[in-house]
């Protein structure tokens, strides 16, 4: 397969996946029996509103959220809105637009996840490769520790870390993203304050990501260790250092596609981690929206997560195409 064909193929697949995801994201919440506005208005009703006023509000909301239109018109509205970054207004914080709620939480989520995923991948792979190559007690301790961390559910580790290091030892603040009285701004004071809140959830995610990657890399590298090219390179007198490089280069390739496959899981796990630490990212926003039946927010958050994961996967696979010589340097007719 040539690089061009590979790229075209991947692009097509991801566009397909994106289309399916968007349709699902639109349709699934609309399978709710009745009408999301019912839920909202009945809540308002509990606040002691007259039935006449309720009816008016109900109709106003129906119009506002376009629920009086046909399913197809709703879909067109939904797509054009999403493309413009317009996800309508939140139910719970009416009339705050959903997009501004998301704008507030995205930076926190990115600040946690990007470094945790990238650093976790790098450190995990190096650890796994070294463990496989060194063998013996090194291998045993790295492998067992990694296996333990990779199998702890994200939120379980978060809860334990929070309890031990924040509640009991008091080394870190208990939950939140910044101190009371601070407000998010581009200032040194705010960043250094926010950093103290950032460490613990970050470490919690990082440890688990390292564990998962190290376990994967170790078995890939053990597999590579037994391959013919290792034996042949040895028979040519090539030294251990060079050979580790060969092994790493080859074992890393499946780890790259592995990263693409695990980004979704990592993101899902990280959402709950935010919840445990009360960290005001997308996970906490989603949680709040679910418990208050704020469907526009739920829908927008799930859509953004899906698109982000798909884009990340796509970029990783494209990168893979450029790195793997079997794709990059394939020539037709010479096989």
């Amino acid at each position: 397969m040539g690089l061009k064909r590979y790229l075209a193929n991947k692009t097509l697949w991801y566009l397909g996946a994106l289309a399916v995801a968007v349709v699902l994201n639109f349709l699934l919440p609309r399978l709710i029996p009745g009408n999301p506005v019912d839920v909202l208005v009945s809540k308002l009703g509990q606040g002691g509103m007259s039935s006449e006023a309720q009816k008016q509000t109900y109709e106003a909301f129906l119009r506002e959220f376009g629920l009086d239109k046909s399913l197809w018109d709703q879909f067109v509205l939904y797509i054009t809105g999403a493309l413009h970054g317009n996800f309508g207004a939140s139910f719970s914080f009416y009339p705050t637009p959903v997009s501004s709620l998301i704008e507030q939480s995205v930076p926190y989520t990115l600040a946690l996840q990007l470094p945790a995923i990238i650093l976790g991948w790098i450190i995990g792979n190096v650890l796994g490769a070294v463990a496989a190559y060194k063998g013996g007690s090194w291998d045993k301790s790295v492998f067992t520790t990694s296996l333990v961390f990779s199998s702890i559910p994200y939120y379980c580790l978060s809860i334990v870390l929070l309890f031990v290091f924040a509640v009991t030892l008091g080394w870190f603040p208990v939950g939140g993203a910044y101190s009371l009285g601070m407000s998010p701004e581009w200032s040194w004071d705010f960043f250094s304050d926010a950093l103290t809140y950032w460490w613990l959830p970050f470490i919690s995610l990082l440890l688990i990501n390292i564990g998962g990657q190290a376990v994967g890399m170790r078995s890939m590298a053990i597999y590579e260790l037994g391959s013919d090219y290792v034996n042949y390179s040895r028979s040519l007198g090539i030294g251990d250092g060079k050979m580790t490089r060969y092994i790493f280069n080859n074992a890393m390739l499946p780890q790259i596609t592995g990263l693409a496959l695990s980004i979704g899981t990592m993101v899902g796990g990280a959402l709950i981690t935010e919840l445990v630490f009360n960290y005001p990212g997308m996970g906490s926003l989603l949680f709040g929206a679910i418990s208050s039946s704020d469907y526009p927010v739920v829908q927008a958050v799930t859509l953004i997560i899906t698109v982000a994961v798909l884009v990340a996967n796509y970029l990783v696979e494209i990168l893979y195409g450029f790195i793997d010589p079997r794709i990059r340097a394939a020539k037709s007719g010479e096989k």
Partner: protein
Amino acid sequence: MTNIQSSAVVAETEGPLVPPEPGAATKARPAWRSLNFGPRLWVSAGLILLITLLAFVGPLFYPYAPDQKVGSLYDSPSAEHILGTENFGYDTLAVLMSSTRNSLINGLLAGTLAVFIGVTIGILAGYVGGWLEELLMGFTNIVLAIPSIVILILISISLQSTDIPFLKGIVGLALVIGITSWPWTARAVRAQASSVGTREHIDVAKLSGARTPGILLFDVLPYLASYVVMAWVLQLASAILAESTLSMLGLGPSGTNSLGMQLHWALAFQAVATGAWWAFLPPTIVLTLISFGLLYLQSSLDEVFNPRLRRGKKKNLAAAAARRAENARKLAEQNEREEVTA
């Protein structure tokens, strides 16, 4: 995944160099006896057994019911209530046992469903091939690319507002988890099935007039058995974790206990911040043990089925090395003597 194939190749090329012990063949041991179950397998299986006992046998002997109000919010552990009470004043240990039971049932249902769908799709695609393979795998790859947590959340929200209690409970949740988590099993099984499909015994079966369903069931599936068992163990773990993720987001089974629901309530009632460790540590530990036990079980099964991943035990290696060095010394002496006499 690739390791299964590769180790089969290795076994073929390395096999003749060290012929099997003659005794092994003549005694006609059942095949599974020749597998090398390491201590890790026993440790992990024991762990799972222990948790299963806690969930299913424990309640028979424990005096408190999980829905019996015995105290108030977060009473500290006492002689009577070993793990104190949780936020509703129920006995935490009683709730823990019922939660564990529900989580295990959920995992079993969802994991089995996922493996069933995944294996069916994977075998069909891998063995039949052609347009069916393209279609099934295209579908699988698309589902695989969309983060499953999102689909889970969206479906669960819809289910939450249904009036059918069945769908809101453990079974409904298991259904949702099962039908969203099969794709990677399907993908992996397809790769295995298409390699099995090219083996000679399949041709023999075809020539003898067997029909496709029969071939799939009797000639392909048995060769994937070890693989399916490992996939099932992994699916169990991931289904149990998916349940607790959803529960923590507030989408758990309504009106009943589960490990995730227990954590959900503990977080909602500030157990961590107030230091009520007995409310959140037990479910955290049980979840971790289940997850670790199952993954450990899977990885030790992997070593049983894939001897290549196995690394020699250090003690044995050292003893063997000492013996080898001793023999080498004797050999060298003998050779020297021969040289002198020659």
